[in-house]
């Protein structure tokens, strides 16, 4: 928040700004005091905004050429790839863009977990972020159905069938979702409609996410409250904009590497076989970014139990700010939690790996161990470690990393407020 009111210099600017203070908003965004010690893990917010815009722009162009009909969808995608000017480029950016979007969002989420960005006073930012993540998964899943290949069809069949596990009304709900008695043309049509809608809902939530962020301001690697503006902060522009631009460009090089040199490596070859309700693929696997949840789903022998556990794996994150009892935000000063954080990262990677494997033998055992650990981490480790852990001394401010005597952040905060 800027300390003083902004007044436009020109008369016209003042006239407009009195009626709609867009210029005040612009000035706020430019001046927004940002901790100067943010590391590169903090650049993924900007990268994610870029990903969303890229998906929307390429998606709008693709929708001009795509036909959402069970008999024509596959052929229309080939039409885009072969006959539309740079259609191959637009489609490969869109399909790889989804993967890059998830890569960035996972880094963003784990950054938040490491530095305690979900903790007070940023709980609402965290919850809006999780809602965005949920919508992203829905959009990505429906988007994967649109080319109407074998994995599209069978992925849609597996995921929509999950709802049939709901007692009593499950089958009715599934039929209602399909608009038919199996995944069919009506399903494809509504998925296309929703796939076009969801990104704009995400865009709205992104605005709220940033708004909510601008109330308390950014967390930072040290995790302490800072006075804003002060010598601990820099104005968002040009300092953060140029740094975000640099990180975004590095990200774009990796993105371009996928698009131009190995555009199909993240997809499944079966999706270049047109959908066939009579032939089931040997292994039905979702896209890589949903694999950890797929592993959790399949680790339970009971269908309903699996569905409940899978959704719990996401919804438990919503109460994370209240499960974490530690008074210290950043894992930099939490020697015990820091170890558990890395175990969680490995656990999620392992779940992703076994999610791609057949649910049998050693993979099933690993999926179960991984699932149990995942929940233990949030339900047991976070509250207990928060109470018992002796945290390292916390600096009083970013500029003067003088160590305060104890591990009591509120003291540091009080001292800091006086600076």
């Amino acid at each position, binding site marked *: 928040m800027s300390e003083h009111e902004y007044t436009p210099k020109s008369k016209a600017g003042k006239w407009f700004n009195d009626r709609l203070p867009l210029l005040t908003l612009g000035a706020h965004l430019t001046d927004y005091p940002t901790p100067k010690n943010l590391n590169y893990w903090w650049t993924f917010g900007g990268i994610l905004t870029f990903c969303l815009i890229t998906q929307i722009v390429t998606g709008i162009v693709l929708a001009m050429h795509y036909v959402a009909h069970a008999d024509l969808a596959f052929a229309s995608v080939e039409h885009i790839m*072969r006959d539309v000017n740079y259609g*191959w480029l637009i489609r490969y950016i869109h399909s790889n863009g989804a993967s890059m979007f998830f890569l960035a969002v996972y880094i963003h989420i784990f950054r938040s977990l490491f530095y305690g960005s979900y903790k007070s006073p940023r709980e609402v930012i965290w919850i809006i972020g999780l809602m965005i993540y949920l919508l992203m998964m829905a959009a990505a899943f429906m988007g994967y159905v649109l080319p109407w290949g074998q994995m599209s069809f069978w992925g849609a069949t597996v995921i929509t069938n999950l709802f049939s596990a709901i007692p009593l009304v499950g089958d009715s709900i599934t039929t209602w979702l399909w608009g038919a008695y199996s995944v069919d043309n009506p399903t494809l049509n509504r998925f296309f409609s929703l796939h076009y809608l969801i990104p704009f809902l995400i865009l709205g939530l992104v605005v709220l996410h940033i708004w909510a962020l601008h109330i308390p301001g950014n967390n930072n690697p040290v995790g302490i409250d800072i006075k804003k503006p002060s010598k601990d902060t820099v104005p968002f522009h040009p*300092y953060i904009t140029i740094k975000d*631009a640099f990180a975004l460009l590095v990200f774009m090089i990796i993105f371009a*590497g996928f698009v131009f040199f190995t555009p199909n490596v993240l997809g499944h070859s079966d999706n270049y076989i047109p959908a066939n309700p009579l032939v089931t693929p040997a292994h039905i696997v979702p896209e890589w970014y949903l694999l950890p949840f797929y592993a959790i789903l399949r680790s339970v022998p009971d269908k309903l139990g699996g569905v409940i556990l899978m959704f719990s794996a996401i919804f438990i994150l919503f109460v994370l700010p209240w499960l974490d009892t530690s008074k210290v935000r950043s894992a930099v000063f939490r020697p*015990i939690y820091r170890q558990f954080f890395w*175990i969680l990262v490995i656990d999620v990677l392992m779940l992703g*790996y076994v999610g791609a494997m057949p649910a049998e033998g050693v993979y099933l055992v690993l999926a179960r161990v991984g699932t149990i650990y995942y929940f233990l981490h949030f339900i047991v480790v976070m509250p207990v470690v928060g109470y018992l852990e002796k945290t390292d001394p916390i600096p009083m401010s970013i500029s003067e990393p003088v160590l305060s005597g104890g591990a009591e952040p509120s003291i540091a905060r009080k001292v800091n407020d006086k600076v």
Partner: protein
Amino acid sequence: MIKSNIKLFVLSFLLIITLRPLQSAEMVDPIKVDWSFKGLIGTFDRASLQRGFQVYKEVCASCHSMQYLSYRNLGEPGGPEFTDQEVKAIASSFEIEDGPDAQGEMFTRPGRPSDKFKNPYPNVQAATAANGGAYPPDMSVLVKARKGGANYIYSVLVGYEDPPPGVTLDDGVYYNKYMAGNKIKMPNNLMDGLVEYADGTESTVDQMAKDVTTFLAWAAEPELEERHKTGVKVIIYLVLLTILVYLSMKKIWSRVDSEV
């Protein structure tokens, strides 16, 4: 203790990854061929594409459709690059059904470059019935639709063998080393000297398999050469821009006492 736990996790994780190939030993890994279109700046071998088209036309096309390609594609840059006359001649060698005319009748006419490749069968059911219950898949994107891609297609084409002792095959089923389950309904159609190459290349089974696979790889990814060329330019541009932005960033941040 926790650190050793992490090590244990990582070790077991690596162990599973390395054990993975041992578990799925049913299928033989496809032969690795050093294709000219592999790698970051790979391009298609023009002569091989033209020969491959000949093999496709004379052998594969009697059963396999290629419905997403048009005859004009054969003359486009990055493909076999037949001349305009050659493309017209190829297209007009096919009788294409058109219509209805003013009387409401369907009629046939010689093909035009803008026509899609003619299907050998009127529909999937006819194709399935004519091939012993196994539909010969459309070959437009076949290379992208198979794990292993071009290597796999080539391997299947040269992978026919007599079945090992103890394996009995039904009528119309053939043994193939590289096919999933080792059973394939497509007979071994390639034999030495089957086609007479216009450029005088000796038409061995291996040569024909390589040529037709190259052709199929192009058919699946006709944009490959343009994609590779554009990609190199894009990456160079992005790297230069990244360097400029990095230097700007360093300069801007030199005003504050903070690392960036």
